[in-house]
């Protein structure tokens, strides 16, 4: 794994490399280099299996992290590539031509995070949601509990008491 990372480092600007396990590493790549690196990994290094493609919302930094996790079946090792794209311009090149199945992931990311992959087949079709009008739900600024309380009726009659406050009310109501 080390050797691989070293050789990759000489070819691509890898950053923030973490060797999580002997068979799993993560590294950050600039968005522009992602496709090239993925292609390289798939064709040259044996990382032929796209395990997953997903995103992490770093709301505080205004960035989306895309994670491409690749698996090398022959050597049984994984490499996770992170790339950061701006939240307010969430667009990324698709990789459905490298792995057709990536189209599904991209479709999901479009719907759940609002990250666009222009040209990806069916990327604009609704995936799991139907008639959704709010923020893409996986974004951190979407509050699911608040949405649930606003949108759905919950059964009434639930009341709870805080033990400390309850005891204060009964045992020492006048004291500070």
């Amino acid at each position, binding site marked *: 794994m080390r050797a691989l990372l070293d050789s990759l480092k000489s070819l691509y600007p890898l950053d923030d490399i*973490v060797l*999580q*396990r002997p*068979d*799993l590493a*993560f590294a950050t790549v600039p968005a522009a280099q992602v496709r090239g690196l993925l292609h390289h990994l798939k064709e040259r290094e044996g990382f*032929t*299996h*796209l*395990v*997953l493609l*997903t*995103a*992490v*919302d770093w709301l505080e930094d205004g960035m989306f992290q895309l*994670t491409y*996790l690749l698996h090398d*079946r022959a050597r*049984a090792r*994984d490499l*996770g590539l992170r790339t950061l794209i701006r939240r307010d311009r969430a667009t990324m090149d698709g990789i459905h031509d490298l*792995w*057709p*199945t990536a*189209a*599904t992931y991209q479709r999901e990311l479009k719907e759940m995070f609002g990250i666009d992959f222009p040209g990806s087949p069916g990327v604009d079709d*609704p*995936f*799991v*949601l*139907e008639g959704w009008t709010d923020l893409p*739900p*996986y974004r*951190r600024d*979407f509050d*699911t*509990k608040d949405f649930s309380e606003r949108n759905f009726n919950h059964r009434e009659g639930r009341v709870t008491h805080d033990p400390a406050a309850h005891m204060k009310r009964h045992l020492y109501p006048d004291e500070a």
Partner: protein
Amino acid sequence: MALYTPDRSQYPAALPDGSLEFDLASGKYLKLWQGPQHPGITGNMSLELTVCGDEIVHARTHVGYLHRGFEKLMERRTFIQCFPIVCRICVPEPDFNEYCYAQAVEELAGIEAPERARWIRTLILEMGRINSYMMYLGGQAGSLGQAVIGQWTTYGRDLMLDRFEELTGARIYHMFILPGGVRDGLPDGFETRMEETLREIERIMADVEDVMFHNAVFKTRTVGQGIIRPEWIEDYGVTGPNARAAGVVKDVRKDQPYLVYPELDFEPVSGTDSDVFTRADVRRRDVHVSIDLVRQILARMPKDGPLMAKVPNVLHWKIPKGETYVRGECSRGEYGYYLVTDGSGYPRRVNVRGPSYTHAMALLEKMIVGVNIADVAGLMVSLHTYPPEIER
């Protein structure tokens, strides 16, 4: 020998952008919806089929009927609070969620489950695998109209659920493998009752072999049907028995051994023909592997020792910033959890990679083209997909 080979050169016509054109008004094509309310669909999803005659010319999988937003819900639950909800992501084989999640949390928190807990985890995973396969076999036979197999295998699964119940305290959602270890050890006399159950399951499996696999009609329907072509394996991220039936002998239990698998003696089952029959047969043989593994585990697991690592007070458990991916070989293929933490008491992001995600979406849409309507259910079941893990 096909009685009739349709001429695909004329229709459906391809549009300039490569997509197909279906002129429904022409009467040549028919839109056929299977599901979500449809008994041949595995679980609550739906297929939008465009048929021409008896043959499917285009298919679209629609999911989302079971979407509960787990990945979002987990972002507002503490690490221990996530533990009860993860198992709901995959109903028929929930334990992989518990294992992958617990393992990922342990890895990032820097704790390690005790030896005995790791044996018990392996035991539970193998028991769950047997269950999942039993359910699959019933479904596969049922999708082709052979109801009796489902009766038997569900009974076998029920017996195994009894073992689950006495071990974990629940039938379906065991909620037994939690970050740090497992809840409890084996109850008294468990080994004996498990052995009885395994014998009964072996008897059932023998009957299944006689009645389902040595069956001329079943073979007629399945041999040569629904072949996954070699190039699709990588294109569509095919894993597990689906890949092994195609000759890609990759089993996470062997290749990236986890838990106590390195200490167990087994060989991954594989096939070569990659059709519905081979996939069913691979799974049938895998049941026997699992039965053998359960026996090995029960014979060799330590009887004493701690079951939980020292965990901090779970109410305030914070985990340092980090990310990891933990995978396991579930009955359907590679099951994995991608966990990102940010140092708070809540996961930053959890992404569940269920094997059905690729199998039931892109792969199925690809495979189903050119298939007879009557074979759709059988083909779909043969990929062994569970919709809840697609949309989570």
